[in-house]
């Protein structure tokens, strides 16, 4: 397997592998960078505000007097909006992906796929105003009674639509990569396209679809502008998505671009929340990674 010029080629190989490893390490460096930027002020914050009060407190009002630091209202808002986004994006995204991969003609696919990717390029600010000025008044307030001007439902739906191209495109790539031979075997046994899609292609592409879902969900949790504009900026401990609510990300962007002086405890909340979000998505990703790996084993 080696040739007569092996040594020179092997050093070249090693250099290249080193460069590639460096690329991978960039991801770790980014994480380290984020942790470092957040750590100092987070620790300082938790010296003033006991962590238990933060995690279990039911009122969030750091800039008020007296200040209150319970993050539960922000947590419920983040979960509600991300949850609705997932409920919207996962089925629609998967359905779109199945259609484009298994049913659509090559010409249809070549037009529809890039068009959906344009949807991914709409600035999130535009989506936010779309939710506030169109989805809420024209749709929701007619269909669902009791929906307020700012509400989590509208924000959740629009976040779902925003991550739709992400989920659909990556799932679709994963499905297209399933070898034709698997499909042909099923067709040979008399299955219809529908059965092939459901029972052969989707299971075979599951790890890619899973990756798409997790990426989409992570994105939804971290989404900032849509929720800031459409869900409102009033913390609200509730399970009712028709009401206004403030997510962790809304609060972070509001405070970092606002008038709060740096160095105050109210400003440090940004870092505490940033760390909390980071830890949350880390736990989410850790468990999904294990879950997906188990499925991968079975079909590869």
């Amino acid at each position, binding site marked *: 397997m080696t040739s007569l010029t092996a040594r020179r080629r092997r050093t070249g190989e090693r250099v290249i592998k080193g460069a590639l490893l460096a690329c991978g390490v960039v991801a770790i460096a980014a994480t380290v960078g984020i942790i470092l930027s957040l750590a100092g002020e987070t620790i300082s914050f938790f010296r003033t505000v006991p962590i238990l009060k933060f995690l279990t407190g039911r009122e969030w009002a750091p800039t008020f007097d007296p200040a209150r630091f319970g993050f539960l209202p922000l947590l419920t808002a983040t979960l509600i909006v991300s949850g609705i986004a997932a409920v919207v994006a996962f089925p629609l995204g998967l359905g779109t992906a199945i259609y484009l991969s298994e049913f659509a003609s090559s010409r249809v696919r070549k037009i529809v796929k890039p068009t959906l990717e344009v949807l991914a390029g709409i600035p999130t600010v535009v989506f936010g105003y779309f939710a506030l000025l169109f989805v809420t008044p024209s749709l929701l307030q007619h269909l669902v009674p009791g929906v307020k*001007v700012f509400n989590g439902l509208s924000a959740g739906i629009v976040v779902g639509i925003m991550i739709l191209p992400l989920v659909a495109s990556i799932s679709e790539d994963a499905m297209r990569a399933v070898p034709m031979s698997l499909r042909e075997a099923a067709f040979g046994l008399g299955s219809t396209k529908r059965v092939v899609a459901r029972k052969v292609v989707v299971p075979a592409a599951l790890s890619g679809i899973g990756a798409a879902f997790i990426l989409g969900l992570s994105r939804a949790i971290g989404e900032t502008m849509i929720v800031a504009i459409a869900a409102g900026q009033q913390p609200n401990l509730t399970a009712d998505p028709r009401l206004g609510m403030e997510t962790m990300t809304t609060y972070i962007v509001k405070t970092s671009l606002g*008038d709060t*002086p740096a*160095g105050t405890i109210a400003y440090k909340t940004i870092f505490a929340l940033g760390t909390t979000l980071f830890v949350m998505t880390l736990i989410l990703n850790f468990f999904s990674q294990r879950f997906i790996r188990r499925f991968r084993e079975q079909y590869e």
Partner: protein
Amino acid sequence: MKRRTTAGFIVFVILALVASACGKSGGANKDLSGEIKADGSSTVYPIAQAVAEEFGKDAPNVKISVGESGTGGGFKKFCNAETDISDASRPIKDEEKTACSGKSIEYVELKVALDGLSIVVNPSSTFVTCLTTAELKKIWDPGSKIKNWKDVRAGFPDKPLTLYGPGTDSGTFDYFTEQINGKQDASRADYTSSEDDNTLVTGVAGDEDALGYFGFGYYDLNKTKLKIVGVDSGTGCVTPSKETINSGTYKPLSRPLFIYVKKTSIARPEVKAYIDFFLDNVSSLVASVGFVALHDDDLQAAKQTWTTAKA
């Protein structure tokens, strides 16, 4: 035919871009060059931008940049020696003063314009033309549970009251709470809040029961959709207008807007010329961006402070 017009159009666009890059005439300050960096409050931004725009016509070789990181974010950069001018919708706070002195940054505080916080209601609320500061406090106090107009004043109809206001992180909120409730950041929490005043305008205009407060400029440009409410602070009802805000009779909700200039930057001729230009022209520019000029006395005082600092 089609191809030639497309090509012609492209050539035209390129020429236009080139032409706009060269051919700057300039006025009295046309020989000045250098860079001026400003950052801070997004409320003050339109003023800073208007002045920068006009100065740029006068001194086309000076590069001016204006940011919108917020009053707090602006001070952070200012006290880290990253900007020359900090725009602020509130005076510098103690923590920020400490940060600045920690890095030996000395500055000049200059009042430049006024913003009138206006109380607005939906046009359907014809029964109210004036509210006293005591009534405003009753509505907005942290412990307030008032949800109906009839609880504000005897004689008001039995109509629900919904509240709209700026987010807790804005200078507007800080100022209003301090003036009306006596303490900064002391306010009831159950109102519809938004950082974007346009959203508040839409909210109040579309909600019959609404009462809200935001900057005068936003009321002024949406007069047909909103109804203004005067404020009585003990000496009679005063409706906000350019005149009443300027003269100080609209109180206590006329708030001053500031710029802070780094002392070491003043040594640079372009900065000196810029602030000269700023103070000379700000009063005539603010009207076009929704603010009110300082009272003459205050403007003279600011110019005096500047003259002292320049020396």
